[in-house]
C-alpha cells in the first residue's frame, strides 16, 4: 500500500436508560404518539429553564471513566447557538472543549479480529438531542419527543487505519453502552449516529499531524454498515484524487453520506463553517463533581463484555469461540449467567444456548428477551437430559417445541409422552416380552450371531415408541438372553 488512511469518529449515542430527558422532566422513552413526551422546555416556551438530570450526568461520568477519560472538577454546560426547526430554543445545550467536558483524553483497548488496538479518545460530552424530522414532498414533520433526550458525543483522534478497525471500535463502544445499562445503543431506533472523518497520507511518512492529509468529514452516518461503506468509499475516492494529483488542492470539507447512491456528497468547506457563538449557559450554575461521587460511580461500573468473556473461559472452561458468542449480546450473556445461577452446568448451558436458542433467534429474528423459555426452564430441560429422563435428541425437540409453542419443557415432555422409560422394571417387562416372541433369535445369538441384539433392542424401542433408554435396554437384553 502506498497510502495509509487516518480515520476519526464522532459517535453520538442517546442515553436511553434515564427516566426523564437531560434538562426537562419529560419522559425519556419510546412513544408512538409524536410530540407526546414534551414539556414546556422542549418546545422552547418563554421563561422555561433547564434543570440538569443527575442520572444522565452519573451515566456520562461512568462512560467517561470506562473510556479512561479525565473527569473535570466542575461541570459546565454551554450553548451552541443556531436556528433550525428541530431546535426550538434556538440553541443546543452542550459542552465545548473549553471548559472541560465530562471526559477528556482517554484510551480504550479494543479487539479487532483477534488483535488488540488502542483507540485515543479526545473527549466525551453530554448534550441534548434535537427533534426528529421527516421530510415529505410538500411538507415536513417535527417530532419533539427526541428533543432533549440526553446524548453523549464521543470524539476520537484520527487513530483508526481501516474500516475494520473503526467498526471493531464502534462495536466495542456499543457493547459498553449496553453492558453498563447506559443505552440500548440501537441504530434502528436512531439512538446511534456518527460523523466520520477520513484522510490519507503517504504510508512511509511518520504519523504526525504535519504529515496528515486533508480531513474530510462525512456527516449523517447512521449505522455501522454505513460507517464501513463511507470509510471504504472515502479512502478509495481520496486515493483516486491523490493519484490524479487533485488531492492536495482539495479544501478541508464536510460531506454527507447518501444512502441511495452509496456516495458522499459535498456540503461545505471550512471557510463556510458555522460560528456557533458558544458561551456558558447562565441558567446552569457550575456543578462540583465530588471525588466521593466519582468513586461511588467508579465502584458501580458493571462487569463488561471482555471481562465476562475471560470469566467464561477461565472459570467455566468455555472455548474462546463459545465465550465470544455468549458475550456478544448483553441480554444473551445475562440469560446465560441466570441459567448458571439456577444451578445449570456452565458448559451444558453454553451448548444449549448457542446451539439451539441462538439458532432459533437468528432464524426468527427475535431477541432473547422475546422468548418464553426462562433460564430456570432451560435448567430443568438440561436436568432432564442429564438424569436420563429424556435423550439429548429428545431434548432438542422439546426445546424447539417450547420456543415455538410458548410452553415449559416439563409440560411438553408430559404431553407428548416423550418421557424416556428409565426404570429397570418397566424395561425388563418389555425385554421379556420381546424375547418371548423371538425365541429363534435367542438361538441365533447363542450360535454366535451376537448382532441380533441390535434387532432385539430395536424391537423394544418400537414397542416403547423410542422411550426406553437404549443403553439400559441393551445391557438388560444381553443379560436376559444369557439367562435363558
Amino acid at each position, binding site marked *: 500500500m502506498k497510502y495509509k488512511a487516518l480515520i476519526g469518529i464522532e459517535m453520538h449515542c442517546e442515553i436511553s436508560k434515564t427516566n426523564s430527558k437531560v434538562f426537562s422532566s419529560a419522559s425519556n422513552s419510546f412513544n408512538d404518539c409524536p410530540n407526546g413526551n414534551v414539556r*414546556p422546555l422542549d418546545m*422552547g*416556551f418563554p*421563561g422555561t429553564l433547564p434543570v440538569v438530570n443527575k442520572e444522565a450526568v452519573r451515566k456520562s461520568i461512568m462512560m467517561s471513566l470506562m473510556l479512561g477519560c479525565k473527569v473535570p472538577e466542575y461541570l459546565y454546560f454551554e450553548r451552541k447557538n443556531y436556528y433550525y426547526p428541530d431546535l426550538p*430554543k*434556538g440553541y443546543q445545550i452542550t459542552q465545548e472543549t473549553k471548559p472541560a467536558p465530562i471526559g477528556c483524553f482517554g484510551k480504550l483497548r479494543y479487539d479487532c479480529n483477534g488483535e488488540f488496538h488502542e483507540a485515543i479518545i479526545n473527549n466525551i460530552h453530554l448534550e441534548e438531542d434535537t427533534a426528529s424530522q421527516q421530510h415529505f414532498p410538500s411538507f415536513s414533520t417535527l417530532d419533539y419527543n427526541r428533543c432533549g433526550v440526553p446524548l453523549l458525543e464521543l470524539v476520537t483522534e484520527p487513530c483508526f487505519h481501516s474500516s475494520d478497525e473503526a467498526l471493531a471500535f464502534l462495536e466495542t463502544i456499543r457493547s459498553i453502552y449496553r453492558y453498563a445499562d447506559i443505552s440500548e445503543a440501537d441504530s434502528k431506533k436512531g439512538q446511534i449516529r456518527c460523523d466520520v472523518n477520513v484522510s490519507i497520507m503517504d504510508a512511509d511518512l511518520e504519523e504526525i499531524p504535519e504529515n496528515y492529509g486533508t480531513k474530510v468529514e462525512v456527516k449523517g452516518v447512521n449505522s455501522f454498515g454505513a460507517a464501513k461503506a463511507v470509510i471504504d468509499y472515502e479512502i478509495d475516492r481520496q486515493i483516486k484524487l491523490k493519484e490524479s494529483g487533485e488531492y492536495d488542492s482539495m479544501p478541508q470539507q464536510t460531506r454527507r453520506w447518501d444512502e441511495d447512491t452509496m456516495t458522499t456528497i459535498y456540503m461545505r468547506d471550512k471557510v463556510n463553517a458555522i460560528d456557533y457563538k458558544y458561551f456558558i449557559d447562565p441558567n446552569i450554575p457550575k456543578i462540583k463533581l465530588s471525588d466521593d461521587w466519582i468513586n461511588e460511580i467508579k465502584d458501580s461500573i458493571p462487569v463488561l463484555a471482555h471481562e465476562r468473556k475471560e470469566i467464561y473461559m477461565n472459570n467455566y472452561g468455555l472455548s474462546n469461540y463459545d465465550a465470544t458468542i455468549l458475550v456478544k449480546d448483553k441480554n444473551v450473556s445475562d440469560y446465560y449467567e441466570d441459567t448458571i445461577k439456577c444451578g445449570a452446568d456452565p458448559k451444558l448451558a453454553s451448548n444449549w444456548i448457542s446451539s439451539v436458542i441462538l439458532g432459533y433467534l437468528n432464524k426468527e429474528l427475535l431477541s432473547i428477551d422475546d422468548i418464553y423459555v426462562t433460564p430456570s426452564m432451560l435448567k430443568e430441560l438440561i436436568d432432564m437430559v442429564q438424569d436420563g429422563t429424556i435423550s439429548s435428541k429428545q431434548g432438542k425437540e422439546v426445546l424447539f417445541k417450547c420456543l415455538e409453542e410458548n410452553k415449559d419443557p416439563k409440560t411438553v415432555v408430559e404431553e407428548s409422552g416423550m418421557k424416556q422409560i428409565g426404570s429397570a422394571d418397566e424395561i425388563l417387562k418389555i425385554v421379556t416380552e420381546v424375547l418371548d416372541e423371538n425365541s429363534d433369535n435367542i438361538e441365533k445369538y447363542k450360535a454366535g450371531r451376537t448382532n441380533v441384539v441390535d434387532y432385539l433392542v430395536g424391537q423394544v424401542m418400537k414397542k416403547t415408541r423410542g422411550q426406553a433408554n437404549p443403553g439400559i435396554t441393551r445391557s438388560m437384553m444381553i443379560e436376559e438372553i444369557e439367562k435363558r
Partner: protein
Amino acid sequence: MKNSLKSIEELHSDLVSGNVSSSDLVNESLERSHKLQDECNAFVTIMDDAKGVSVNDNLLSGIPYGIKDNYSTKGILSTGSSNTLKDYVPFFNATAVSNLEKLGAVPVNKTVLDEFGMGGTGTTGHTGVVRNPWDKTRMCAGSSAGSACAVAAGVYPYALGSDTGDSIRKPAAYCGIVGYKPTYGMISRYGLFPFASSLDTCGVLTRSVRDAAIVVDGMKGIDSNDMTSWDSSRVHLFDSIDGNVKGKKLCYVKELCDINNYPDATDELRKHLSNFFDTLDKCKSLGIEVEEVSIDQKLLNAVGSVYVVISCAEATSNMSNLTGISFGPRSEGNNYHDMMKNYRTRGFCSLIKRRFVIGSYVLQAENKDRYFFNAQRARRLIVDEWKKLFEKYDAVILPVGSGPAKHLDDSKNSKISNIEPLEEHLQIGNFGGFPSITIPNGFVNGLPVGVNITGNCYDDVNVLNIAYALEGSMDYKNQIARGYDYEV
C-alpha cells in the same frame, strides 16, 4: 374609600375585620386601572373578570396586584410587550406568580414594559408609550414602566417587576415609590421571559419598604425548575425588619456624587445631588456612619459597556426561541428560514434588533475574547471592588440617575458630559447579584427622585432594614402621584 392608597398591612387588617371585602378591593383596583390606562397607558391587559377571594392569615390574601407582562401567566395573555408574542397565552404560571396565588393574592392586570425588558424608557412596548403619573410629558423609565406607574397612581399596593440593569429601581425613583431587587436566585426566574439570564432578577415595586419585604417573602423560595434559585426558607424579610440601624456603616462613591465631576451640570442634577447629601445627613442622624470612598474612574466608566456586551450577548441567544413557529403570530414565507426572518424582522422594535446585532457581534469567534470575555473579566473586577466595600460597609448608598424623570420628548433632555456612570451604576447590583433597593428621597422641581441602597449577596435583611429606617426619617412613605390620591 381610599383603599387603593393603603399599605398591605392596613388592607389586611381591614379585610380581617370585615371593613372591606376582597371583591371591593378588586373592583376598586379595576376601576382605577381603567382610568389610569386612559391617562398613562400602563397596561397590556386589564383582567375585568378578576374576582375577590376569601381572606386567610397571609398578609397578601385578597389584595389585588399587578404583574409585569414578561411573567408567564396561565390562561392570561403574556406579551413581553412585544409584537412577537402579541397573541401568546401561556399554559403555565411563573413560579413567583404561583407562589403569590397560593397565598391568595389577586392579580388584576398585566403591566407594560419596554419590549422584553430591554430599554430604560417605558416607550418601546408594542402597546405604546407609558406616561409618568406625576407629569405626563415625562417617562416612567423602564423597563418596569407600567408597574411603577400603576403603583405610584394607587391602583394597588404593589406590582411585580423584573430587573436586569435597573429596570425596577430606576422607574421606582422616577415615580416616587420603592423598588426592590433581592439577591439573585432568591426568587425563581421560572416563567420570567428572559432578557439576560445571568442578570435577570424578579422583584417588586411598592410604596413602602415593609410592603416590599412582605411581597418578596411571598414570591421567593427555592424552585426545582430554576437551578439558580437557592433555599431562603430561613430568611423572613418582613419579620426581620426592626429599624435598628445604630452603628451601621454606609459608603458612597465620590466619583459619582461629587458635583465638581460634572462641569456642565444642570439645575436638576445640582438639586438631585444636593438632596442626596441631605439624605446622607438623615442617615447620620439615625446613627449610621457614612463615609466617602473613591473608586477607579476607569472601572466606573466600564460599567455601561460591560452591561451592553453581556446583556446583548445573552439576549441574542435567549430570544432565539422566538421564531413564530410553535407559538406567537406565525409569519408567511417560502421556507422556514423566511418565516422566521419575516416574523423577527416585523416583530421586534429597532432597539432590540440593534442589541441582537451587538450580541451576535461580540460572540463571534473572532470577537469573543476582545468583547465578551473581556466584559466578563471586567464584570468580575467591578464585583470584586464592591465586595471589598462590603467587607467594611453594610451597604453602598448612591443617588439614582441624574435627577427626576426625563422628558418623553428627548430634545428637552439636557446632555451632561461624564454622566453615564451615574446613570448606569445600578447595573453593578446585577453584575454581583446584590440585593438593591430604591426608595424616594424627595423632590426636584416638583418631581420625585430616589436614593439606592445596595448590599452584599444574601444580606437582604440588612439592606431592607437600613432602607426602612431611612424611609421612616423622611416624608415620602406611601406617597401617591399628585392627582391620584382621589377616592373612588
